[in-house]
């Protein structure tokens, strides 16, 4: 028997099925004639003309009918040919025939389920072998490429659903396969982005309840991997050694408020360009985080944000909180909280407080309180009463701790205590004015034992980061809230020996996780809900002259709709024009809490140290 001749009157489907069945049975016996021809037809993929397409479709359909005769051992080459096909290489006819075959195979025999699922998952991305890869990357930028992508991916996902209908346990296998097949961080951006798109589509789809948590957890793992890969220190150190950095520092420092936008922008923009251009990893992370944000937003719109958030929160505690140099991944949590301040926002803060108060691992406790402080300071949507409540818990813990402790400064032994004190001061730097504007909260603030903990023999004022202490003391003096010692030895320094000691190797003394996000695309999602120091500081500046009005502070933190105007006067929109980037840089620059007249030595001192995490100081690191 040979391949049905195309000129002869057509065979019926069942006859074709019979042909193939007989061929398969014959192949087991050793007679491979028709079987080999069949395999050859399936392998043929280059430049198919119409008749070849028709032949391929017919063969696939015939094999679908003969599925019960396929033997995994004897028909290995046929199966290899089938599973080696990529939907991206063919038109919709072949795609349809192929996916039907896959469903048939998966449902006929348990041995093929994994293979079919794997093939479908591999088809999340176009073929990545070198000649084809660049072709597809280019194609996807054109409209017909996007049409192709829709054709392929719609079929892939509907086939996964069909298989799940017939083989109910397949989602269990699928989640493992999706996790294992996830591209590593060195894959081209276009591919990894597409894979993650598909993962999130699965999470949001019918099988979401079954595979969702594995998918979200794997995604966060991958984000953190990318995050820690971003070479932060190298780039900054490089600039510093060139000396150019130093000059710009002066520009930022002395004349931060009097700079003409043009000259400054060039240098800062150039720095950011240099940072981002070579940094593929940062761009990948940026794109993936934007995908994640969009997905979270759609979850919020369909009402399942809380469930998704719980999974993200668990993942946060396991991987992000414990990661050594997490730079941007935590903004996923920030964004999710901003969409639902009542539930998610409070859940996040409560978890952090619990870890600080009753956790077991000291490093994680310090990390948690640093996250809490940065979050409460920067999240516009957190109501001030809640901030007060959280502060209360932290201060209370610190008070109970130091009540039972005698002795003098010892940064290493009491590092958790110092972390708590620093966190309190940091939050108050941002929120004090707001808090004392509300009488009830002002009295709550005064009832907290802040004077007791800060005035304790353990001397947290001398151990915590000097720049923060300084700013805090200045505010306290201006607002006449507490009575605390005013003289302070490390005036003008960003960090001190003591702060380094308590911060330890991980530099928890300079860990402010929610400092401005420097990933450009992500920043647009974060910005409306974010508090820049410049927004808060300007309200304090006016104290030097006239009194401030409470409205200024409200403006800084206000905007229930989340769209507040930062005080550099720009009416913000999400346009992709240059002014957006410029404002971005400009307002970063204003985010400083160091005093204006810093000495040169302290600057050198600062940058020789090269912290592992950006701090709320002059912008270059915060770039």
């Amino acid at each position, binding site marked *: 028997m040979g391949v049905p001749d195309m000129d002869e009157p057509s065979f019926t489907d069942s006859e074709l099925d019979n042909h193939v069945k007989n061929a398969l049975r014959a192949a087991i016996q050793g007679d491979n004639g028709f079987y080999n021809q069949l395999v050859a037809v399936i392998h043929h993929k280059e430049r198919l003309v119409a008749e070849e397409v028709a032949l391929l479709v017919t063969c696939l359909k015939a094999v679908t*009918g003969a599925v*019960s005769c396929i033997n995994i051992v004897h028909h290995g080459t046929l199966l290899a040919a089938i599973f080696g096909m990529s939907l991206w290489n063919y038109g919709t006819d072949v795609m349809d025939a192929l996916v039907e075959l896959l469903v*048939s195979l998966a*449902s*006929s025999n348990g041995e093929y389920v994994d293979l079919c699922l794997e093939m479908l998952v591999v088809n999340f991305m176009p073929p990545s072998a070198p000649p084809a890869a660049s072709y597809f990357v280019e194609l996807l930028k054109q409209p017909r490429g996007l049409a192709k992508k829709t054709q392929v991916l719609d079929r892939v996902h509907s086939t996964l659903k069909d298989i799940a*209908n*017939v083989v109910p346990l397949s989602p269990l296998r699928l989640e493992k396969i999706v996790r294992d097949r996830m591209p590593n961080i060195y894959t081209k951006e276009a591919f990894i982005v597409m894979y993650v798109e598909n993962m999130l589509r699965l999470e949001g789809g019918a099988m979401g309840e079954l595979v969702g948590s594995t998918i979200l957890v794997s995604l966060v793992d991958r984000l953190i991997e990318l995050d820690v890969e971003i070479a932060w220190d190298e780039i900054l150190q490089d600039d510093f050694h060139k000396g150019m950095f130093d000059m710009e520092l002066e520009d930022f420092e002395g004349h931060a408020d009097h700079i003409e936008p043009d000259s400054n922008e060039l240098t800062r923009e150039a720095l950011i360009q240099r940072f981002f251009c070579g940094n593929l990893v940062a761009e990948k992370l940026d794109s993936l985080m934007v995908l994640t944000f969009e997905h979270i937003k759609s979850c919020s719109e369909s009402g399942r944000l809380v469930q998704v958030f719980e999974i993200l929160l668990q993942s946060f505690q396991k991987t992000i909180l414990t990661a050594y140099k997490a730079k941007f991944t935590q903004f996923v949590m920030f964004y999710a909280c901003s969409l639902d301040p009542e539930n998610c926002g409070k859940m996040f803060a409560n978890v952090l407080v619990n870890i600080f108060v009753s956790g077991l691992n000291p490093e994680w406790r310090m990390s948690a309180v640093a996250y809490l402080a940065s979050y409460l300071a920067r999240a516009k949507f957190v109501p001030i009463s809640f901030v007060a409540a959280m502060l209360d818990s932290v201060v209370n813990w610190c008070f109970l701790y130091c009540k039972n402790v005698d002795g003098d400064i010892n940064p290493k032994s009491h590092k958790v205590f110092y972390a708590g004190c620093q966190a309190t001061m940091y939050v108050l730097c941002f929120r004090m004015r707001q808090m004392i504007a509300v009488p009830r909260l002002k009295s709550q603030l005064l009832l907290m034992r802040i004077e007791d903990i800060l005035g304790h023999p353990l001397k947290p004022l001398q151990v915590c980061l000097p720049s923060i202490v300084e700013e805090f003391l200045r505010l306290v003096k201006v607002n006449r809230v507490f009575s605390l010692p005013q003289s302070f030895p490390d005036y003008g320094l960003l960090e001190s020996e003591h702060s380094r000691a308590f911060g330890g190797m991980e530099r928890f003394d300079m860990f402010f996780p929610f400092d401005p996000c420097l990933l450009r695309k992500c920043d647009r999602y974060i910005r409306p809900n974010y508090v820049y120091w410049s927004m808060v500081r300007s309200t304090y500046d006016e104290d030097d002259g006239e009194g401030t009005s409470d409205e200024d502070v409200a403006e800084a933190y206000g905007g229930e709709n989340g769209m507040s105007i930062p005080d550099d006067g720009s009416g913000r929109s999400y346009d992709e024009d240059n002014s957006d980037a410029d404002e971005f840089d400009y307002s970063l620059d204003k985010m400083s809490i160091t005093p204006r007249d810093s000495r040169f030595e302290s600057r050198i001192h600062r940058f020789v140290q090269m912290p592992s995490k950006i701090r709320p100081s002059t912008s270059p690191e915060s770039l």
Partner: protein
Amino acid sequence: MEALKESEADLVVYLHPSNAKCSNDAILSSLSSLLFTYSETFEGVVLAYDPNICSKLAKILPGIHPYFGVKLKARLLLFNPTPNMLLEGEVVKITPQSIHAVVLGFSSAFIADEDIWDDFKHKIKRGKEVYVSRSHKKHKIEVGTILRFAVKSFDEEILHISGSLVADHTGSSQWLDKNLNEWSQADSTTKKRKSGEGEAEKPEDGRLMMKRETSSPKNDKQAKKSKKRRKEHS
């Protein structure tokens, strides 16, 4: 259902020391890792468990990680289809070459056309595919029907059953029971199939099994018919 059985098991669950505070949860999660997997020891797929912790004392194992072993008795629901057993499942897909059904909501069953009794003819009625018996026009198998079939083999890894409709007393359960002159309350055609969740079939399966024994002469006639050669499907 024949393949279901309940057994009592004496188990020891070894827990990591970090679980000492919440040992109940740890035991339950350890037991749940057994679910939907075939176990040689128990000779079946564990579908459900009901633990009963006997004592509050546990033996600590010597070693680097001092795991402690908690003894408990558990009642387990096991699923173990063996060849020639009769099982029931809901049909989810029909093709000219096969019927696919789902048993107990988690196990997929596949019946190839060689194993479908020749009397059944594949037809397309009003856009839906259906198998109709030539001898009894009312005996239909379509998507949603509860199908009774014989087990040919069982793949323990993926929990996949290969079945056949050749034997006696196989086919649409509803029709088979009606045919025995007794009204079946299995409402199969409107049931929506759920994927991935283990849902038990209704307990009236037990009742149906008993009825099967009292088969009518009509069914015996089916057995006597010889296997015809497959005709062309139109």
